[in-house]
């Protein structure tokens, strides 16, 4: 999978420190471009991260995520 983020196509940003690892974003992403990290964040959760490319900017992950600031979706 191409993991380079092209800034002229949609992408998301997940702030790992603000994630609780609930996996709801992963569940709803139609493109399967979010995964769970092996690392722990400072609250002891395995945070989600954007694996790169193919995001359509559909925002479904943003609304599925219960946290106000964990996910940002950018759509050029």
């Amino acid at each position, binding site marked *: 999978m191409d993991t380079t983020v092209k800034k002229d196509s949609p992408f998301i940003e997940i702030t790992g420190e603000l994630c609780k690892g609930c996996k709801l974003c992963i569940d709803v992403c139609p493109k399967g471009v979010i995964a769970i990290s092996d690392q722990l964040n400072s609250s002891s959760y395995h945070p989600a991260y954007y694996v790169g490319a193919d995001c359509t*900017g559909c*925002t479904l992950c943003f609304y599925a995520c219960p946290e106000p600031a964990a996910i940002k979706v950018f759509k050029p």
Partner: protein
Amino acid sequence: MKTTTKATAFYNVFERKGGPHKETTHYCPGCGHGNVHKMIAEAMDDLGINDKTVFVSPVGCSVFGYYYFDCGNFQAAHGRAPAVATGIKRANPDSVVISYQGDGDLAAIGTAETLHAANRGENITVFFVNNAIYGMTGGQMAPTTLIEQKTATTPRGRVESEHGNPIKMAEIISTLPAATYVERVAIGNSKHIMKARKAIRKALKNQVENRGYSFVEILSVCPTGWKMDSPDARDWLTDQMIEAFPLGVYKDESSEREDGWYRDVKPFVPAELNKYFGVNAEADVAPVDLKKDLFCKFAGFGGQGILTMGLFLAQIGMRADHNVSWIPAYGPEMRGGTANCSVNVSNKRIGTPLVERPNVMVAMNLPSLEMFEKDVVDGGVILVDSGIVDKTPDTDRLDVVMIPATEIADEVGTPKVANVVMLGAMIAATDAYSLDFVSETLKVVVKKKNLIDMNLAALQRGYDFVKNGS
């Protein structure tokens, strides 16, 4: 570039939350409250109402709504959010008031408030987060718990014959004529969420446009209470909960109420209030000085006119443009039991209407004296009907007036004006107001005009007793 990110209706940093993690919520991973908060915040942003919204948080896991929403906030006692919201909205009709509640809060302890606010068609927005369980207290059965659902208090599952059926609040509220808009949505999957966003926005927009009471029930999840991981909880919601609580619009009269709140509410105007309270606002009342604040406890038997006496004093203070409060306390019986009232008359604004440490006390019977004497502050004035009470209060500590008020009243014409004799004595003993001013006020506030003369005579006799000893 279009960015979808945290709404500005949220605080940037959740300072009130404290602790090290001030940008995340206090909710468990995967909890539905976070999703609902986000949808509300987004709608607030879209409608441009952040500066006039008041968010009323319930008791339940969402008790800390004020950590997150950058607007007016209030946290109500368990179940009382719609009553509190009613007060806020009526006092501030231009505000947008949100009553945010869980199912334990809204459909158990707060059922009465819920139904009556809806039945009055308050122009508020209720967001009902139904997660079929008491989350905060550790997963007990809620009124909305499904049949066969296991909870801490239904370990073998909810049974109809033992626990009743899940209560369908959206259906019930939709039967009330005053409700404008009632919809049930969910957050089990993305489709649900997109519909829920619309319903939430509409419910707030209705209020902005004065269309009346809107109620959105949001089927939510409590992964912790349900003992499920987050995706499974969403699936259980989708597969099980929706069957018991069908989604959809149960009532929508939003467009028919476009002329504003269907009920024409006429606010009281000062002239009307003055008339109601017997205040003659036209009379040219010269500014009256109140030398010291009065914190009064008047107590006696029901029927001795104790409560009326307090009311008279409050009306005197009101006519002098002082701040006043009057609050009665009496037993279930209207006559014969004990009764008392607390009256504050103050140059300053009054906080509580209760008087716990009076500086003026009137005792018209022995039980009252025995009950309240100890509460009177040192140096306080205590007036006792010496014809009825054969006990003298502590004269070292208190300024004591023993006056046979009922006997004097009888001489004036009827024992019923004993309270006014006491009032005259109290006015003399405290020098709070001039006798003239009090007489003038009595002329206005005594309802039966043929009794005014007798009241004035009683007042004079009480006053003279203290000033001249007769």
